[in-house]
């Protein structure tokens, strides 16, 4: 088993995608199926952007097992008031500046769900959000 830990700073768009890039490299070295790598990278990239754009900062813990990759993304708030709404395609609370960069289309969380095998999102206002997802490697 391999474990990686990363920190994400709030507002740091310049480095958004760097964690996904590291994980992509690791999965390639392990000869994981290309379609699994693609799905994992999409989900992780969107997660990175979410923490940068919407939270006070957070961390990512990646665990790679023989048969799957488990990723936990935890941020330190402010939290998602209505998860069902946040999961709706097209709904976004992103600022105008963030939208101008081409983010905030309300596609992030739906993209994450569509590209993961197990998906679990919990949030508590004033505490933070925890997103856990798992992708299984095909034999």
């Amino acid at each position, binding site marked *: 088993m391999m474990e990686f830990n990363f920190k994400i700073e709030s507002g740091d768009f310049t480095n958004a995608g760097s964690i996904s890039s590291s994980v992509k490299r690791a999965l390639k070295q392990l000869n994981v199926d290309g379609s699994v790598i693609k799905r994992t990278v999409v989900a992780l990239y969107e997660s990175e952007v979410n923490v940068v754009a919407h939270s006070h900062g957070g961390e990512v813990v990646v665990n790679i097992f023989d048969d799957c990759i488990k990723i936990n993304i935890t941020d330190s708030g402010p939290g998602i008031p209505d998860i069902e709404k946040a999961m709706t395609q097209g709904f976004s609370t992103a600022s105008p500046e963030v939208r101008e960069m081409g983010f905030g289309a309300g596609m992030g969380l739906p*993209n994450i769900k569509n590209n993961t095998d197990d998906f679990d999102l919990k949030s508590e206002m004033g505490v933070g959000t925890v997103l856990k997802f798992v992708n299984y490697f095909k034999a």
Partner: protein
Amino acid sequence: MAKVAEIVEKLNLKLVAGNEGLQNVITTGYTSDLLSDVMGNIKSQSVWVTMQTHKNVMAVASLKDVSAVVIVNGYAPEDDLIEQSNAEDIPLLVTEDTAFDISAKIYELIK
């Protein structure tokens, strides 16, 4: 199917960075300015046509194995996007054309 070098030459695109990727193969394309849309829908070996000029463009392009990025309307790519293009060996091209026009021209070449 075409190589990046061919579309650069035939469509008179300005090669700003990422020269090492000129032999990348282009089999299809995607035109969008929404990064999540591109993240979710672009296919590998695509040419990506966009008006976005910041560094995150290369993050998405690299993660999705994009063959080249074309910036439209003559917009100037930001410095850190240029740097990243060289680091990833993904050609960064600029055209004076609109997204509609250049997409149509590329389509004609690769269909």
